[in-house]
């Protein structure tokens, strides 16, 4: 016992220092978030008004509005939803239930994981070349929708696979033991049970899509659009692109307009994420494995 030199005091001191540093750094995130939100609100809140929502962008900051961008975003996200969700869900079902073993399945899985990490601007380059130029869709909503769908497809597939995996095997076996085919089991039991998880993943993917700017700039979404799109072949602008446009301008007044635009965007995102939380809670109540 006497061979141990007592260094408790020093160790205790190191411990306290470490703990304090960790704690401080952790709560820094909260501080950052608060500062960011406060700054945006302070800059932009007073610019919010019904006019802001119904005006088109203008050279004059006082008259600038977000109508075209808001509608552009709504159009875009609806199209992206219609394209990516069926494909994403179908892919996940196929990969998880039909072809979950073997070399090819592993290749696809690795492939999807890698695609999830590709920078969004590369998807923009892809969209530009394939959809705008090769398919001749020009700088239209549908080209943007296809591009964004490709971008978020890996996210949806990964989330959907997780949701399907979370359904216990006992449910599958119970269905098979009653003489069900694979498709009947999937359609009647697995999909309904996995649906909340899939939806949560979809909403999170949509949140990402709404906030993306770079790919859309690449395919030519305009930064000055004074009309609401009327068909999927129309050119368009989106909330983030409009914000980018305003934020790039040197005039201080546009800084405030940009902040107002950000508030609108954040509100939209908040709504979507709240929906995701509600769905998640509903699922946890209904599917208590």
């Amino acid at each position: 016992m006497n061979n141990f030199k007592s260094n408790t005091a020093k160790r205790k001191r190191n411990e306290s220092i470490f703990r304090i540093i960790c704690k401080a750094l952790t709560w820094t995130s909260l501080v950052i978030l608060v500062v960011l939100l406060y700054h945006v609100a302070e800059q932009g809140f007073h610019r919010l008004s019904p006019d802001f929502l119904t005006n088109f962008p203008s050279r004059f900051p006082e008259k600038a509005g977000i109508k075209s961008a808001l509608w552009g975003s709504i159009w875009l996200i609806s199209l992206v939803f219609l394209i990516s969700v069926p494909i994403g869900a179908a892919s996940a079902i196929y990969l998880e239930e039909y072809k979950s073993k073997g070399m090819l399945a592993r290749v696809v899985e690795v492939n999807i994981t890698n695609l999830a990490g590709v920078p969004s601007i590369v998807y923009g380059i892809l969209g530009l070349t394939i959809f705008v130029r090769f398919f001749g869709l020009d700088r239209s909503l549908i080209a943007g929708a296809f591009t964004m769908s490709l971008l978020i497809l890996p996210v949806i597939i990964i989330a959907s696979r997780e949701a399907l995996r979370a359904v216990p095997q006992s449910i599958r076996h119970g269905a098979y033991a009653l003489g069900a085919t694979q498709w009947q089991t999937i359609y009647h039991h697995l999909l309904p049970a996995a649906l909340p998880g899939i939806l949560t993943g979809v909403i999170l993917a949509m949140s990402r899509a709404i906030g993306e700017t770079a790919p859309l700039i690449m395919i030519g979404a305009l930064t000055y659009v004074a009309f609401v799109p009327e068909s999927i072949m129309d050119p368009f602008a989106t909330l983030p692109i409009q914000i980018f446009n305003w934020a790039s301008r040197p005039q201080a007044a546009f800084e405030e307009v940009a902040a107002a635009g950000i508030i609108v965007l954040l509100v939209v995102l908040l709504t979507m994420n709240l929906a995701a939380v509600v769905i998640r809670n509903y699922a946890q109540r209904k599917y208590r494995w």
Partner: protein
Amino acid sequence: MVINDPILSIWNLNIRYGETLAVKNNSFEIEKNQVTAIIGPSGCGKSTLLRTLNRMNDFIDSFNTDGIIKFDGDDIYAADADPVEIRRRIGMVFQKPNPFPKSIYKNITWGPQINGYQGDLDKLVEESLKGAALWDEVKDRLNESALSLSGGQQQRLCIARCIAMRPEVILMDEPASALDPKSSARVEELIAKLRQDYTIVIVTHNMQQAARVSDNTLFLYEGELIEYGPTKTLFTKPEKKQTEDYITGRFG
């Protein structure tokens, strides 16, 4: 062991997981409308054997089998045999109750519906629940979620769901082992009642349960069929020493 009216006949059955031989060269027949228990220590292959009878082992990759299993005269592993069809006629109740996260009503009607049932669903639900001794407890809440039932009730629901398909054989894989003694007793009463209409094969590691509930007992040890006979005889005057040792608790 003399079987007068075999509904399932098994010849030289070997079951492998990959290279491991789990069931070794079993041959036996199952008597119709009787309860046959399969007993043996843990890991001796009972569940594997049971799951092979309704082709539930198909879902395990490394699983393969040779030998013949005939159900009502037809080889269930023949190239043109339809596992879906087989599972309609041979039902299964699992160790852990696995009701679907749907209403009690839907749990029972789903199986018949996907198999094209044309009759009165309400009547089917009532009959099945009565057959599983669950009707009185749930008749007023058929639309509630099956997950709101207790463990014992869920298991009886699974039995009701199984008999709603009007199978010919019911395979039970340790159906009472996850239940408390009271629920367990109720399931045993149920089995006694069900054998009038169905052939039952039950795997259990609870010897006393096997003795209480079954007409015939099959003793499996390390994948080998050691002894097969009428329950009364096997438990009072077993032919093989190994059987006697197991029953008297010298190993387990």
